[in-house]
């Protein structure tokens, strides 16, 4: 297991390096100049051209690409992500400031997804052809298909404008306070609905399959309590595909939810990255993608380790 982990970490390092290289090259091969956004439209005569030259020299954009890449990697090795071209703030500090918000929203929406999706899937599998099964699966389909900006704005209209219960935007205090929780509630539910739909349908089909297995029939014949059969025998085996998908979903949530972050003015990493992309703010995009790539790689590693816990037949060497 230890050797497996060491190997995986090494591969992960390669993956992350590949990602940053790809982003570095991609950013520079797309037309558009990061300096454009800094030159006022009415910059008179030669003043704008002079400013552009000064800025290109300052950020090293006038040097050959391989030199820029070398400098980038050497700074990266020193954990220096550079500063934003637009705001001149340190990218590392910006990410540290925004990542907790993304993490809070990701965990919150994952909680919503699991709390809604998994029980709905189990109950639907236990009572196939029932009204509950049909209703929950229709709702799951609805959750999958509704665009998040629509759900978000509808929640906002109802809970902020009409009922006045919840704040419409922004990040509140700590999550354990009512201020923090009330700010998190709508974005977390909005974002959690889609993965809840996925999880409900997945759990239902996985459970239904497991429930037809011989060992379940044996357990029933032994006279075990229904709850024990469902939870200890069926659910544990049905969870394997669910955990895989959950890991991927969580990885996705950790990369920031652009639409939900925009609608609810949630100061997460998704919006930061989009702002970086539209402004061609190279250091911001590179830093943001690096963090996301690391999060994805780590989550996947965690999921693989979790398999061993869930299914003792799996062993990594």
């Amino acid at each position, binding site marked *: 297991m230890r050797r497996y982990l060491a190997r995986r970490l090494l591969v992960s390092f390669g993956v992350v390096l590949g990602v940053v290289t790809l982003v570095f090259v991609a950013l520079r091969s*797309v*037309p*558009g*100049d*990061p300096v*454009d*956004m*800094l*030159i*006022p*439209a*009415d*910059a*008179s*005569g*030669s*003043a*704008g*051209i*002079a*400013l*552009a030259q*000064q*800025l290109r020299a*300052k950020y090293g954009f006038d040097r050959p690409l391989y030199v820029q890449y070398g400098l980038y990697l050497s700074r990266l090795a020193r954990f220096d992500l550079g500063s934003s071209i*637009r*705001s*001149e*703030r*340190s990218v590392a500090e*910006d990410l540290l*400031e*925004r990542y907790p918000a993304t993490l809070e929203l990701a965990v919150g929406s994952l909680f919503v997804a699991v709390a809604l999706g998994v029980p709905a899937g189990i109950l639907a599998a236990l009572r196939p052809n029932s009204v509950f099964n049909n209703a929950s699966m229709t709702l799951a389909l609805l959750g999958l298909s509704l665009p998040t*900006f629509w759900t978000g*704005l509808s929640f*906002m*209209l109802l809970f*902020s*404008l009409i009922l*006045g219960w919840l*704040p*419409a*935007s*922004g*990040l509140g205090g700590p999550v354990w306070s009512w201020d923090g929780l009330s700010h998190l509630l709508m974005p977390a539910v909005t974002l959690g609905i889609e993965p809840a739909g996925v999880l409900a349908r997945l759990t239902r089909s996985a459970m239904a399959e497991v429930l037809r297995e011989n060992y379940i029939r044996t357990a029933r014949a032994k006279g075990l309590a229904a709850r024990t059969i469902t939870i200890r025998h069926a659910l544990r085996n049905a969870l394997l595909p669910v955990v895989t998908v959950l890991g991927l979903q969580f990885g996705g949530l950790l990369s920031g939810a652009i639409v939900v972050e*925009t*609608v*609810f*003015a949630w*100061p997460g990493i998704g*919006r*930061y990255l989009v*702002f970086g*992309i*539209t*402004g*061609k703010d190279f250091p911001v995009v590179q830093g943001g993608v690096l963090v996301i790539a690391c999060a994805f790689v780590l989550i996947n590693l965690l999921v693989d380790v979790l398999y061993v816990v869930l299914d003792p037949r799996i062993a990594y060497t």
Partner: protein
Amino acid sequence: MTRTTRWARVVSVLGIAALVSALPIVNLGPAAGETAPQRGGTLTLSIKYSPTSIDPQKNKTITDEQVGALMAEPLVDWVNGSFVGVLAKSWDVSADGKTYTFSLRPGVKFQDGAPLTAAAVKASFERMTDPAAPMPRGGNLANVASVTAVDELTVRVSLKTPDPDFLGKLLQIDVLDPASWKGLTPDKAPSGTGPFQLVSYVPDQRVEFKKFPGYWGGEPYLDQIVIQVVPDPATQEIELESGKIDFMDYVPAKDVSRLQHEGLQKMSFGRVNWGRLVFNLKTVTDLQVRQAVCYAFDRNAVLQDAMYGLGTPQLTLAVPGTWAYSSKITPYRYDPARAEQILDQAGWTAPRPGAMRQKDGKPLVLNLPTSSNGDWEIITQMIQQMLRNVGIDSRITTMEPNTFYDAVRTGKYDIAWFETNASPVPPIAAQNLDTHQYWDVMQQDLPQVDALVEQASATVDQHARAELYLQVQTIHHDQALECTGAWMEQVFAVSSKVHGMVLDPLGVTIFSARWWKSQ
């Protein structure tokens, strides 16, 4: 204390009465029967884009200026068509237009307690033009040869060439206390003379201010101003309607009349923001094609259908009613029949009715890129249809804004809808015709136009200047260098509880010491 409370209550009752009688308030300024301003309260502003920097001298966007204007001030401002002194009490321009002497307002204090002096103005100007740390707005001072602190309260600015519009360039140059910008972290602001002091700045989230009681213009009415960053206009509108915020910027054109109907105040600015059809003169070389495009372009349809009537048709480069305007220019007005006639005469004909035009087997097709920025995309689609109606084919490519700007600037286009902001002086949209500037989109040197624009911008005599701009406009028209489009109107929405807000022509909310909120 009791008296104050009672007085406050009377004021608030009167205030509410005034408010109810004035609903829906459309214009700003004191409403009929409005009482004396009330003190206290927090004003919450909602803006779409986070300020890129909290340092007022590092402003890059109108939002940056909006936020900076709370904390710091320029020497002069532009209100209702003329310059008014802010930190400058008065000023004097030499006859040759090369020397500007400013008398500073006495008794003005920076927020850190230091007095406003001529030396501080000089240092502030020098910080803006330091080549080692380029500032986006440093170019406004590129023509400055030297700044001299004549005495404690007199500053003399000498220019390299005469510039009658120099005051316009100072609108975006704030004066700061030189002692306050050393060793500054990005979340702290240097000290200005403005009515509000920075309390905290969290990028992408919020900026908080408290009043500066020592403000030279009198203690501000509001206790606090909170700025929230909310990128989605729909969310901003919900918060505005539910009373959680008092102000939202850039209302989508389609929602303006609805919000007005709900009693919110509309604050507009325009006339410095104009949209037009620009040509790549290197690829669209045929003058008759350009003229035909200008006749085929229906600016009124764009204004009515895409902008919901927010804006004014722009027929010539100069703003009507100003000294730069001349009735000698006959503008291109929407006339598709004329466009077709010109194309026919130029040999661009359609092989069969309804088909796109061609000449010597070469199809007439223009590359028409646009920015994914909502309105531009719709306007561009309308333009495509207008061109199609006269037999000109075009290909739209939608790009993200930065890529689009770069494509137009570097000539990867034939024709495009393009909007520009500019200083309110001179009152003519001619600055962009200078082909030696960074944002030259025409892709071709026009030495005659450059010389005229340069000469006009350095001519002090207004009559002579108007003559020069007339020549510029004549060439612009005869050569169909662009098709003029519209002066675009931008709208902010403000709660009816807020009073005294004023916009400068660029859309920056100014004079915040006089804003007040009825409780």
